[in-house]
């Protein structure tokens, strides 16, 4: 047992904690750091870079589709580009970028010094990076995946897909699932155990609810993709027959497994982003979120209902009407929690005093895009009309309104909001406005006409189309709009660069926001909080300013110092009562080396060099044992 006495910040405490938590400079520090803030920033930069790559792929496709019978790209090139665009945006950008925010923000928002498993956190980043590079290395041999991100069997099976294209896909995604799963476990345990005392579950920011729901969904959904990719690899490499009708398999098995994973995945990449909005809109409306409980419940119920709608991707596969009706109903029911969230945001805006700064502009734009993506989703849930809509550009429009509207817009808003916390410098407001309007108008100009292209009968995933079908004009407009949109994204990068070089100092809380991450300096010190805060309400930094709040008060300037090595406070899962002192790990090379070993294994599996695969696996085991082997075993607990 140890006694923790409340302390107050002091220069000597700062110095002690700095020494304990600082990552040493040099190669060891770069490869070995376990600081959640460094890892979070790496996630953000890496995922954003993949997004730019995916955007470049899209730009090439849009050039090809700008007019009928264009010959800029060969069919092979186009098919690889559209497949990699989907894989990149969905797997390597949309989810990891949110992991980046969560990694950086969670411990700060929760009033802790790190994630529950800092080394696992480092591991999940390295696995993400390496799996992304693994998938992209397919371009080096000219064999990028070319069967779409959905990879429907049997088109992916050996006889119809020679070469390594789909082996990169199956193995790359398997590799990535390890990263995502490890990350999800880390978030859940962090939430259960590493919160500020007093942060009971009814005081959690909605962003936390979003990532939490998402993390649970990952645990249940990801294994379905794992199973599917293992089967695909086994079919291709070892002549198995999971999807081969001639030998008792079935192609629809792939579709079920893929969409049981795939539809929850849509919610996985939007719920944390919606959470960012639910926490940001109140800050800029100068009031607490309207209907907090409704929004929290809406978040969780969306995550759960998300598992009951996968068949709406399969309405044309010949399933009986009764079963399609069931999934149609489920797909409509899932609209309700989204509507609840939309009207909670609207109420917050109407009953608040909106501050028209860049993050809020993105939030307001996001609500409009969210609703457009939502209602077009309802249209695809109506089975008979979906039989027309499915696999047309209408669906392409729908999914981009969902993924750009509900993921990218909140992400950019999140950057404008939190980048000052991360770098200590503000972004340019003027450039921010240009950034917003270019992205918002460019996006709508580019992607709204896709609805029309779809209604005019244009199917998806075609590398060319003939003249005379009336598709030329809408496609030209789409191409122009998407390039305007791309310019908007570049303006964002310019703004970031400007901010890093010239941005005015942000101070701890530039937006007068209510949550704990704004209680520490910008950028935060390696140990986050000098003394660990305790929480008495949903809005620790607004206390004393709101009428009729309870009597409980957060304490930010006095608390445990925990300076006997890397330590933070453990609490009970529901009520957040202090329960133990957690000893946090030192920096370590094991996560990096383990991920590297796994990369060796996957290249071995890709090339059928089994000795290499086995050697990698042996290294993985050795690294794991080394990692877990206790450095010193304390006498007393």
């Amino acid at each position, binding site marked *: 047992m140890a006694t923790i006495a409340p302390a107050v910040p002091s220069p000597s405490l700062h110095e002690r904690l700095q020494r304990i938590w600082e990552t040493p400079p040099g190669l060891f520090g770069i490869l070995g750091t376990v600081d959640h803030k460094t890892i979070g920033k790496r996630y953000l930069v890496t995922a954003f870079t993949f997004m730019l790559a995916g955007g470049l792929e899209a730009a090439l496709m849009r050039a090809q589709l700008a007019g009928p019978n264009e010959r800029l790209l060969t069919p092979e090139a186009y098919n690889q580009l559209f497949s990699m665009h989907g894989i990149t945006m969905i797997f390597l950008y949309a989810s990891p970028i949110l992991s980046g925010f969560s990694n950086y923000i969670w411990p700060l928002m929760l009033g802790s010094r790190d994630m529950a498993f800092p080394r696992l956190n480092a591991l999940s980043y390295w696995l993400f990076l390496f799996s992304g590079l693994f998938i992209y290395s397919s371009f080096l041999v000219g064999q990028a995946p070319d069967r779409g991100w959905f990879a429907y069997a049997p*088109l992916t099976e050996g006889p119809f897909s020679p070469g390594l294209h789909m082996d990169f896909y199956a193995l790359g995604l398997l590799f990535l699932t390890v990263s995502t799963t490890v990350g999800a476990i880390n978030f859940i345990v962090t939430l259960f155990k590493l919160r500020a005392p007093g942060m009971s579950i009814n005081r959690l920011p909605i962003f936390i609810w979003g990532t939490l729901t998402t993390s649970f969904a990952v645990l249940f959904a990801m294994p379905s993709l794992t199973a599917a990719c293992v089967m695909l690899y086994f079919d291709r490499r070892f002549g198995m027959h999971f999807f081969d009708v001639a030998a008792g398999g079935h192609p629809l098995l792939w579709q079920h497994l893929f969409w049981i994973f795939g539809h929850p995945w849509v919610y996985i990449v939007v719920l944390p982003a919606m959470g960012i909005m639910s926490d940001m809109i109140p800050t800029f409306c100068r009031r607490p979120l309207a209907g907090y409980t409704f929004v929290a419940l809406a978040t969780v119920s969306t995550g759960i209902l998300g598992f009951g709608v996968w068949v709406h991707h399969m309405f044309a596969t010949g399933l009986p009407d009764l079963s399609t009706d069931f999934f149609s109903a489920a797909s409509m029911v899932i609209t309700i929690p989204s509507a609840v969230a939309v009207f909670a945001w609207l109420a917050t805006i109407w009953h608040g005093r909106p501050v028209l700064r860049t993050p809020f502009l993105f939030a307001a734009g996001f609500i409009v895009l969210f609703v457009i993506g939502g209602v077009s989703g309802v249209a695809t849930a109506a089975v008979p009309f979906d039989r027309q809509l499915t696999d047309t550009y209408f669906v392409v429009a729908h999914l981009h309104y969902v993924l750009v509207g509900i993921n990218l817009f909140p992400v950019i808003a999140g950057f404008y909001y939190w980048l000052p916390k991360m770098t200590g410098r503000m972004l340019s407001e003027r450039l921010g406005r240009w950034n917003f309007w270019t992205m918002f108008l460019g996006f709508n100009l580019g992607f709204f006409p896709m609805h029309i292209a779809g209604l005019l009968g244009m199917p998806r995933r075609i590398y060319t189309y003939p003249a005379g079908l009336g598709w030329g004009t809408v496609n030209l407009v789409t191409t122009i709009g998407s390039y305007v949109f791309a310019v908007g994204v570049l303006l964002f990068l310019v703004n970031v660069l400007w901010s890093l070089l010239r941005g005015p100092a942000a101070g701890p809380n530039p937006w007068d926001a209510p949550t704990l991450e704004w209680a520490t300096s910008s950028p935060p010190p390696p140990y986050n909080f000098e003394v660990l805060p305790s929480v008495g309400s949903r809005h620790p930094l607004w206390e004393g300013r709101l009428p009729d709040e309870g009597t409980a008060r957060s304490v930010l300037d006095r608390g445990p110092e925990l300076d006997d090595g890397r330590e933070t406070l453990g609490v009970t899962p529901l009520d957040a009562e202090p329960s133990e002192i957690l000893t946090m790990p030192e920096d370590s090379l094991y996560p990096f080396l383990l991920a590297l070993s796994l990369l060796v294994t996957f290249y071995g599996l890709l090339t059928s060099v089994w000795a290499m695969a086995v050697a990698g696996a042996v290294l993985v085991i050795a690294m794991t044992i080394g990692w877990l082997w206790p450095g010193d075993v304390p006498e007393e607990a």
Partner: protein
Amino acid sequence: MLLSPTYLRTFGVVADRMATLGWILLIVSSVVVLVVSVLVLVGVLRRGTGSFAPVERGGPGLRWIVIGGIVVPVVILVAVFVLTVTTQAAIASPATPPGLTVRVIGHQWWWEVRYLDPSPDRIATTANEIHIPVGRPVRFEVVAGDVIHSFWIPELAGKTDLIPGQRNVMWLEADHPGVFRGQCAEYCGMQHSKMAMSVVADPPAAFDAWLARQRLPAASPSDPDMVAGEAVFTSSACALCHTIRGTPARGRVGPDLTHLASRRTIAAGTLPNTRGYLAGWIANPQALKPGNVMPAVPLKPTELQVLITYLQSLN
């Protein structure tokens, strides 16, 4: 100039019902988007400022959430769901049982079409162009020859996937004569983009005559050029992959060419069926549709000329 194959301007009962539902959905959707956009815009502009006001509690907003987030959506969604189910029931089967069954077999990247008949010698086989009688429901059995494809004639009916190991059934009916474009709607590989077809709705008498012709073997050529052309066809690689009924050519890899000249297009809707395009296609199919299974067959120019003359006589 072709019009777009849009499913909002339809020519058959199945697609009509789908379009009605579609229009309702599009109108309701537009209204919802408009209302929310106005609410966002007004809400932002009404009290929006450039500076940070002091924080306040603000209204609880429960009425917004209950009315806008729950009551109104539930009413709309229940109505939409009822429409969905009733529409689905209405188009589940035709009023009178179809007298005609067409089997469509999807191949990378063309459509094989068979008009089924109890006696095997009355089965007519063609490709990429389906004729149907106006005003009569037609039953379609769609099956996959290799990978998944999707059968779709936007102006007549929605999509039905062709899935290996499974025989999906759908029906449609055209209520106007016309030519309706269809295109594969499930990504099926390199030339998915060039896997189109057309459905031709003929007046019943014209259809019956057409079908009767399609059942016949190819007429024996009379003209000496055509005779030479037939000899080129049957003695070259052509016959390994294509069938022309009434000749020794019995290949099953590519489309049945017995009545090739009666079709409007070649290469699955890729090119018009004219002498020039036909010659270009045979001379170098990989240039026009890279990746398709048809090889360039080395023919002398004179052979190519008589071959085309012969093929153009097959109607």
